[in-house]
C-alpha cells in the first residue's frame, strides 16, 4: 500500500460521498453530477503523476473546489437570477440533505468561506490542508473558516 497509489476505483469508492456532499453544497444538486464527473475524470487523468504520499482527500477536494468555481463562473456568465437568502430555522452547523434552507445559507457564503467551512466540517480537513485545497495561506484559511461560520451562525439564529 505505502509504495504505490491505491487502485483508482478504491480511491473513488472511499472519497465519493465526501466529494458528492461537498459539490451538492457548493453548486446544488442539479449541477453536482456534472461537477462530480469532471472532478474524478480530471483526477484520473492526473492520477499516475501523483506522489504516493499525497493526501488524496485534500487533493480531490482541491479539484472539486476548482470545478465548483468553474460552475459558478459559468452560472454567472449565464446571468441567472440569484435567489434571496431564505430564512433558516435549523441551528445545526452540519447540514443534512433535508436542510434545504441551511444548504442555501451555505451556498450564499463567498466561495472561499464556503469551501473552508465545508472542507472543515464535511471532509474534516485541518487548517493546513484547507489552505492547500483552496490555495491560500493557513492564516487566510483560518480567517475564512471563522468568518464563514460567523455568517452561518448569524443566518441560522436570525
Amino acid at each position, binding site marked *: *500500500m505505502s*509504495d*504505490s*497509489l*491505491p*487502485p*483508482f*476505483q*478504491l480511491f*473513488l*469508492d472511499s472519497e*465519493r*460521498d465526501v*466529494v*458528492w*456532499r461537498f459539490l*451538492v453544497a457548493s453548486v446544488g444538486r442539479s449541477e*453536482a*453530477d456534472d461537477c*462530480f*464527473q469532471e472532478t*474524478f*475524470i480530471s483526477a*484520473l*487523468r492526473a*492520477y*499516475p503523476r501523483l506522489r504516493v504520499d499525497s493526501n488524496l482527500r485534500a487533493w480531490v477536494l482541491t479539484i472539486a473546489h476548482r470545478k465548483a468555481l468553474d460552475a459558478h463562473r459559468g452560472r454567472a456568465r449565464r446571468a441567472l437570477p440569484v435567489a434571496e437568502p431564505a430564512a433558516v430555522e435549523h441551528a445545526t452547523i452540519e447540514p443534512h*440533505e433535508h436542510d434545504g434552507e441551511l444548504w442555501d445559507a451555505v451556498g450564499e457564503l463567498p466561495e472561499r468561506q464556503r469551501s473552508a467551512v465545508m472542507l472543515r466540517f464535511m471532509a474534516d480537513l485541518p487548517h493546513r490542508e484547507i489552505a492547500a485545497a483552496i490555495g491560500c495561506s493557513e492564516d487566510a484559511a483560518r480567517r475564512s473558516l471563522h468568518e464563514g461560520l460567523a455568517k452561518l451562525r448569524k443566518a441560522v439564529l436570525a
Partner: protein
Amino acid sequence: MSRAAAQAARRVAERAIEEGLVDVSYATVDSPFGNLLAASTDQGLVRLAFPEESVDTVLERLAARLSPRIMEAPTAPQPLLRELDEYFAGRRHEFELELDWSLIGPFGRKVLTVTSEIPYGGVLSYSEVAAEAGSPRGSRAAGNALGSNPIPIVIPCHRVLRTGGSLGGYGGGLDRKRFLLELEGALTPRLGAGR
C-alpha cells in the same frame, strides 16, 4: 445521498473506460467456483482471481505492478464471458481470447508457455514442464512459476501433476484442480489423486 453518489461514481467509471483513461478494468465473472475477478488491459486478460482472494489485495497488486488507473467495468469482456461459459460447459477445449502476460516474469513465461501448450485432456509432470522450459533440474522452480500463474484456468496450470500422477499443488485449491481435470477427462471422477 450516498446512492446518488454511487450512481455518479458508476458513471465516472463508464466514462473513464470509454475515454481510454483506464489502464486496467475489472469485473466479476460467474463460474462453478463462484465469482472470479477478471482484470484486463488493452492487451487482454491479465489476471483471473479465485473468489477467496481479497479483491482489494488483488487490485492493490495490480496497481503496484501495472498502473493505479484501475476501474470496475460494468461487465467483463464478452469473449471472456463466452469462452469461460463454453469451457465450463465442456464445449470449449481451447481458449482464444487475448492474454496480457505482463505480470509473468521471464522464467514464468517459459514455464507457462509450455503449460499453455498442454492439450485439453492431457497432463505433464512438473519435471517434464521444467525440462521443456529449459530447466531440467528445476521442477521446484517450475512449480513456483505455476503456483504464481496470474491467469489460472485459461493458462492451464492445473494440467501439471507430480511424476506418478498425484495432483501436486494448486493456487485455487486441490478440489478445483481435480474438478478441472475431471471436466477435461484427464482424471477419472472419484478416483482422485492416486490413480
